[in-house]
Each structure stands twice: as structure tokens, then as C-alpha cells.
């Protein structure tokens, strides 16, 4: 049970500190709600489907979009709203810690893209997207390792399997987001 507890507490700490939501205007809160709706909708448009159940979809695009436009605070929050909703709608529960890592935290990770929000230039958007997806990947990989630690026999290398599996569907979704985001950020007016 202790595997991954530290990063999970760390993340939750970050979220609570950064999310001074009361100071946020109504418009920002509503934008988060509606873009999460868009992410839920786009999560149903599958780009690729893996045999083990992983799917590459467009769900990350609205989440990263909002993070890159409004900054990390909004980015973390949008992940914190999207993750639990995704769990409510399509739950895959294997371990209490896996649920926390795979849903709220993984999507919060995407919000880190917002650290590059104030910087102009295509490379900043690409760097933000990469950082966000990388953090999401780390959360899923850690969750996979937790799953292995809890259910698989000793002596296996959980990190290798977990990272290969998660990369198999996150890499295509990442490439698509990398291609679409700069274009969307340019075309969709503020």
C-alpha cells in the first residue's frame, strides 16, 4: 500500500495550494466545466484501440488547451474535475491507490503544461504539452506498478511492463495533441 503514497500526497498538496478557487471568476469556472464536457465527448472519438484496453483518444486536447491558455492553476483544476468524472462514467477500479493515481492525479499532471502558458512561441506549447503528457504517463506507470505490486507475483519487473503498456496508447495521443494544439491555440480566439 505504501508504494506511491508519497507522490500522491505531494500532488494533492500542490493541488490544494495552487487552487485558490475562490479568487477565480465565474467565467473561468464555467470554462473549466464546459471544456471538461468537451473532453468527455472527445474521449469517445477513438484514434486507436489497443487489445489490452488502452485507447488513444482526443480527450487530452481540451485539457491541455485550457492549461496552455489559462495557466497551470486552471490546468490542474481542469484535470481534477475531469479525472473523477471519467472514473464515475467508466470506472476501472483495481486498487484504491490505483484509482487516485489513474484518475485525479494523472489528469492533474496534464495541467503542468500551464507552466508554459505565458511564453509565446510554438516551442513553448510543444514543451508544455510534452511536460503535461509526461507527468500523466508517470502517474499511469506508477499506478501500473502499484497494480503489479498488489496482484502479481514477486520478482517481475513492473516498471517495464507498466511503462510499455501506457506508452503504447499515450504516444499516439500525444503526437496528435502536439500536432493539433498549436493550430487550435492560434485559431480559437481568446
Amino acid at each position, binding site marked *: 500500500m505504501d508504494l506511491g503514497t508519497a507522490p500522491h500526497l505531494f500532488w494533492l498538496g500542490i493541488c490544494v495550494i495552487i487552487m485558490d*478557487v475562490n479568487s477565480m471568476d465565474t467565467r473561468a469556472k*464555467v470554462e473549466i466545466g464546459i471544456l471538461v464536457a468537451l473532453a468527455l465527448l472527445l474521449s469517445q472519438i477513438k484514434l486507436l484501440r489497443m487489445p489490452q484496453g488502452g485507447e488513444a483518444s482526443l480527450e487530452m486536447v481540451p485539457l491541455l488547451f485550457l492549461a496552455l491558455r489559462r495557466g497551470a492553476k486552471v490546468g490542474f483544476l481542469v484535470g481534477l474535475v475531469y479525472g473523477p468524472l471519467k472514473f464515475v462514467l*467508466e*470506472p476501472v477500479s483495481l486498487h484504491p491507490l490505483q484509482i487516485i493515481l489513474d484518475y485525479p492525479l494523472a489528469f492533474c499532471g496534464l495541467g503542468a503544461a500551464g507552466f508554459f502558458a505565458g511564453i509565446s512561441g510554438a516551442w513553448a506549447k510543444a514543451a508544455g504539452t510534452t511536460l503535461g503528457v509526461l507527468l500523466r504517463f508517470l502517474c499511469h506507470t506508477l499506478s501500473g506498478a502499484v497494480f503489479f505490486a498488489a496482484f502479481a*507475483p514477486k520478482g517481475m519487473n513492473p516498471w517495464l511492463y507498466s511503462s510499455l503498456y501506457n506508452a503504447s496508447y499515450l504516444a499516439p495521443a500525444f503526437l496528435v495533441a502536439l500536432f493539433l494544439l498549436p493550430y487550435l491555440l492560434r485559431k480559437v480566439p481568446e
Partner: protein
Amino acid sequence: MELSKQILIGQYIPLDSWIHSLDARVKIALVLVLSVIIFFVDTGKGLGLCFAFLLLGVLLSRIPFFYFVRGMRVIAFLVLTTALLNLFLVKGETVWSWQFLTISKEGVQISLLMSSRLLFLFGVTSLLTLTTSPIALTDGTERVLFPLTLVGFPAHELALMMTIALRFVPTLLLEAEKITKAQMARGADFAPGGLAQKAKSLVPLLVPLFVSAFHRADELATAMEARCYRGGKNRTRMKELRSDYNDLVAVLLVLGLVCLLQVV
């Protein structure tokens, strides 16, 4: 590309059953308790009791049993992998061997235990989402997280955003369909192809969809502010969540299970 035919958000089945009528907060809390308890169960009798309890839940929820079981196929691959890995890799008293494959008595036991735990965990969560509407779930989550508001956790704001999201999925879906048809009339091609092709073909859908989403956000925010929305403090509700004796019975049933598990 008829999106609404492909898309089915959520699993909730609205039926009139005892489980459906329970308070969402109570259901969330009980599912949390059950998913922790299963990690302490390591005997056949205990697992049997847990599954009997789950079966009772499914029967009481009036959800067709086969529908419930079919929902389990999402994790079939994981359960199978877990079972096989444990079956062949756990060392112990050998009961069967062929070439390099050996199965031990301990392997069989652990394999059964681990896959049962997985199925039970997935089963109880499915039962929760099948019998509770997403809106009730977000409402319930807000109340369950209420104690955290004392340390500044924005439970109300999160629940508000989740409710907005759930409310706008069908609206955006209709919008997406309209845009798709309009763009197809202009000659856009949404036919499936490779990954790059697919991503490229989605641009004419995504740009107008994003623009329209931001328009809607703007309108909704103005409407809320015009009605003096100021966050969660002192806000009253149209529908209050109420617990009654049925919820008490549910809590007692789970407590009964915990006590029985201590005995066996």
C-alpha cells in the same frame, strides 16, 4: 459519422430499486469501505461471503445479471493476466508441471484470491455507477468531501464544474453533429485512415467546436453572474439529499458483512 449513435456517456441505468433509492453519500462511503475490506480477505470462505454480498446487491438493484456480468469484460484481460501470472510464477508445492511450466498449490490459491479481489473491486464500483446518476454522484461526492472544505479544499466549486460538464455533454454532442454535417456538406472528409490522416481530418470539426464551447461558457457565466452567483457559501439547493432508514439498513448490512468476515 453519426456521433450520437457511437457515444454513450456513463453507465447509469434508471430503475426503481432499493439500491437506486439509497442516498448517494451512503453508497459512496459503503463502496469505499468495501473496496478497502477486500484487501484483508484472504480465505475462500471470506471471498465467498463477499461475492454473496455482491450478488445480493445486484439482485436488489434489479439490474439484469447478465448485463452486470457483461460490464465486467472491460477488465477481463487484466483478470486473466493476473490469474495466469500468479498461477505460473508463484513458487511452492508443485502440483503440475510440463516443460518449463509449473503450477504450485500456492500459485492456484493466490491466483484465485487475486482475480477474485479484482472482480469484487470492479463489481462494487460498477454497482455504484450503474445505480446512481452522475449528477447524484457529483452531489454526493461534494458532501463526502465537505470536511475538507475546512482546510480550503474547493469541494463545492469542483462539484459545480462537474455538474456543468455533465450537463453540457449532450449539448456539445448535438453541436458536434451539426458541425460535422455542415463541414461534410462543404466537402470535408471524415473517413477513417491512418493516425495522421485522422488527426488532420478532425481539424474542421475541432476549431468550430472549441469556438462554440467558449461562446457557451461566456453566455453561461454572464447568466450566472446576472443571477448573483457567488460560489458555494450559503447557497441553498433545489433537491436536498436525505438519508432515511433504508440507508441505515444498508450501513447495517455492510457492518454485518464486516463482522461475519471477522468470524470466518
